């Protein structure tokens, strides 16, 4: 790929530089002194696992987060953006993973939103449509400027979002996981556009954890891990790029924080056959295709998958909480059951700890005690009145045994740390006495000590003869805690390993589907 050479003798000024960026969210150290130089005109990829700090970095760069330590230079000039508009004024645009388009707006209107061409105090519609048509043509987009945004496919919406940045004089374009919801063909088309962008003088930062993709579009890759840049190299002349990236991504010091206890594995508790889940988003039809799965008593099953792999759809659909249509058969201890709502699931002994704790798992303004007993209120219901003796005693018991750090059980959940909140959520499900625990990202946003407590709890549950499914994108956790690890990709189970058989690299490579196809 050709990089425009500046006038002879002059030193090329980088399109953007981040210098020593440091950012903390409460106790979590998201970025630890990150410095990267983005050369002009190229496609610069940033790779890393979830939580490595990629998104935080681009949020800072694009003005979404204004509070950080360190410096940013755009075109050699120090800048500090305190809003998205501020960043956009200086030519930095972020096209986020989850697009937030206004579905009612027409394509042309959206392209020039907030910067409509004006004439005599009115929107100059003729110019608006003409300009819009021009840009759609540049992007070879087969859509009318009069089409409503909501009628476009995700892929088209993304291209329109990029075109919108172009109309506003973008210099640095940041694409956050642009292909996570695209089909193979759409991805292909998208790449062709991205590679073309440098001809318009645009520098692109491309974020993805699909490794094959990086090879196809990027000139340079920076790999992040635990808030640091751990590897940085040009792609030209590299022979096995994906492997080098994976090694950098996962090569961490693994402290032994996974006190795996092998429980006696017995009869199947959950069996699903032909499990198919329809996707609710646009694009793919099926989030999950024809999965067969057994989970036995005493077993901890790990399911690993990248974004859009269907791993989370699996968890939600087993709990009756998936919005898409679910088909297939489900058995609990050999008994055929139908789970249409979370209430059905709970009645059949299934518990679900959601990944989005604040959104799905707890009521932040309410007290620890009322959160903890919410799923098991019937157990404390005596003659139509809540048995406060029993309720408070059980609550105190779990606060003590799970070591929930709190001043009193009447404290609102919002005052607890992530780890303690998660313990309360876990206790809520323990109180409902289920047979099968589905844990989604059980230790996301949880500090190390609380993690160890939670792992101990998972072991205890398995030892008690229950079944556990851990759906997680935290690879060491899945490998460290689970008796069996399944990898999901594009709605299918693609590989299976027993405890200790797989390395992080193996799992990561089979989860990044393009590579496994090529290898």
């Amino acid at each position, binding site marked *: 790929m050709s990089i425009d050479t500046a006038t002879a003798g002059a030193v090329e000024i980088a399109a953007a530089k981040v210098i020593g960026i440091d950012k903390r969210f409460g106790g979590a150290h998201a970025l630890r002194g990150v410095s990267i130089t983005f050369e002009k005109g190229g496609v610069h990829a940033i790779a890393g696992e979830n939580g490595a700090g990629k998104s935080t970095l681009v949020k800072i760069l694009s003005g979404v987060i204004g509070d950080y330590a360190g410096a940013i230079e755009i075109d050699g000039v120090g800048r500090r953006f305190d809003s998205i508009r501020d960043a956009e004024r200086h030519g930095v645009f972020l096209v986020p993973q989850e697009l937030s388009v206004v579905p009612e707006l027409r394509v042309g209107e959206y392209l020039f939103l907030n910067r409509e061409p004006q004439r005599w105090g009115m929107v100059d519609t003729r110019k608006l449509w003409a300009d819009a048509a021009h840009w759609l043509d540049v992007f070879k987009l087969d859509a009318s400027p009069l089409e409503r945004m909501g009628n476009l496919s995700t892929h088209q919406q993304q291209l329109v979002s990029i075109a919108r940045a172009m109309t506003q004089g973008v210099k640095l374009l940041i694409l956050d996981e642009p292909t996570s919801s695209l089909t193979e063909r759409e991805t292909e088309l998208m790449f062709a556009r991205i590679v073309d962008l440098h001809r318009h003088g645009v520098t692109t930062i491309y974020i993805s954890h699909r490794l094959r993709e990086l090879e196809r579009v990027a000139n340079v890759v920076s790999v992040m891990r635990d808030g640091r840049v751990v590897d940085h190299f040009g792609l030209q002349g590299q022979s096995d790029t994906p492997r080098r990236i994976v090694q950098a991504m996962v090569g961490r010091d693994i402290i032994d924080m996974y006190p795996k206890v092998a429980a006696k594995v017995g009869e199947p508790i959950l069996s699903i056959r032909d499990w198919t889940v329809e996707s609710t988003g646009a694009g793919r039809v099926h989030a999950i295709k024809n999965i067969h799965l057994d989970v036995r008593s005493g077993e901890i099953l790990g399911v690993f998958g990248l974004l859009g792999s269907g791993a989370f759809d699996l968890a939600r659909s087993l709990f009756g909480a998936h919005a898409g249509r679910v088909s297939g058969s489900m058995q609990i201890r050999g008994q055929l059951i139908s789970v249409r709502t979370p209430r059905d699931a709970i009645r059949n002994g299934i518990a679900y700890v959601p990944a989005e704790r604040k959104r799905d*798992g707890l*009521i*932040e303004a309410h007290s620890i005690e009322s959160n903890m007993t*919410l799923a098991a209120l019937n157990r404390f219901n005596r003659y139509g009145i*809540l048995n406060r003796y029993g309720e408070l005693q059980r*609550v105190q018991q779990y606060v*003590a045994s799970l070591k929930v750090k709190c*001043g009193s059980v009447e404290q609102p959940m919002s005052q607890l740390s992530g780890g303690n909140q998660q313990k309360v959520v876990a206790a809520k499900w323990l109180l409902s006495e289920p047979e099968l625990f589905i844990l989604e990202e059980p230790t996301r946003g949880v500090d190390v000590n609380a993690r160890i407590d939670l792992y101990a709890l998972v072991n205890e549950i398995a030892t008690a003869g229950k079944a556990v499914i851990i759906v997680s994108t935290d690879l060491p956790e899945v490998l460290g805690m689970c008796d069996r690890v399944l990898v999901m990709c594009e709605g299918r189970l693609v590989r299976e390993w027993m405890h200790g058989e797989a390395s992080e690299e193996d799992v990561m490579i089979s989860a990044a589907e393009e590579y496994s196809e090529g290898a």
Partner: protein
Amino acid sequence: MTSTKTVTERGALAKGFQLRELPAAMSQDRLRLLPLIIVLLIVWMVLQYLTGGLFLSARNLTNLSGQVAITAVLTAGAVLVMVPGYIDLSLGATVAAAAVVAAIAGTNYELSLWPTVVTTLAFGLLIGLWHAFWVAWMKVPSFIVTLGSLLAIRGLSLVITNAETISPNPDILVISDASLSPMLGIVVLFAFWLAFALLQVREWRARQAAGIRSSFGAVVGLPAASVGIFTLGVMIMAASYRGLPLPVVLVLAVVALAGWFLRFTAFGRRLYAIGGNRQAALLAGINIRMQASLVFAFMGLLYGLAGLVLVARLDSAPPGAMQGLELNVIAAAVIGGTSLMGGRGTVAGAVIGAILMESLSNGMSLMNLPSAYQSVTVGLVLLFAVYADLRSRGGRSGD
């Protein structure tokens, strides 16, 4: 070994928490009512002074209690609706319609007292179920459903009555005129207070048994004393004028019932959960549809009850009566600490809010101020009450 460590650790935590306990304790619903009660008492003192002793006379208090009855009954129900995050805008129209039904049942169909009562309550329940159907089953926002009723049912009353005021069967006047004898009234009030105090004691003992540090004063003493002073006041009023008016007995019954639901049953706990985080409530297996239906059905019964009190009080059923009642009720609930977003609110607070608002308008009438001034005052009280509440909860809901 580990357990002793945990215990001492928790002990230390508990000790360290003592100082910080105050704001947390104040932020609990129970004690958050304290400032509101103080404001109410101050308002009463000021009105007593401004009206030259007229306001707190037994005669005026009896009159006030009649005024409060309708608002208080509906406010207690409105809290049940608002805690899970719904709202009811139809009150004025539905209560007036229930009054019309009561009047027609008595006059046109010559039903006696009890059949009239049953018919009116059934009518209210029917409207409540109508709301439940649209909100819970058809998933139309309650704001829209009840706004629709506000318009449609008001119109329906006008159509049925040809926009004329109907007089009820005189039998029905007993609802506002009857009163328990002072002796019986005192017994009822005392029983009300005793039941409340015993439930607080039960709560306190449950905490002691579970080893939760909590002061007797905060859990039992203060609430029992506040409710005690209130019931004592009503007792004095009952003893020195005409006994305990039936509308007041109805209010006590409805407040006790709604408060019971909300505080002591699993049903109430689930309502808070739905309002606090609907998604989390759903994932905890709560049947939101059933909960919402029951709440609106209960509210429907209260339309009927309030309609009966209204028709008896006015001795007529004007189809255009009670316009804007819904907003007064919502304002009273909000002043009493109920959140419009759901998840927060108590029946006790809402009833105090209702008493505060009716006291202001009653006192200002006694001072012969035009009702326009009452509007101004109530509006400002609402604004300041909500502002004070937001501030007292600090930045927690800030961002």
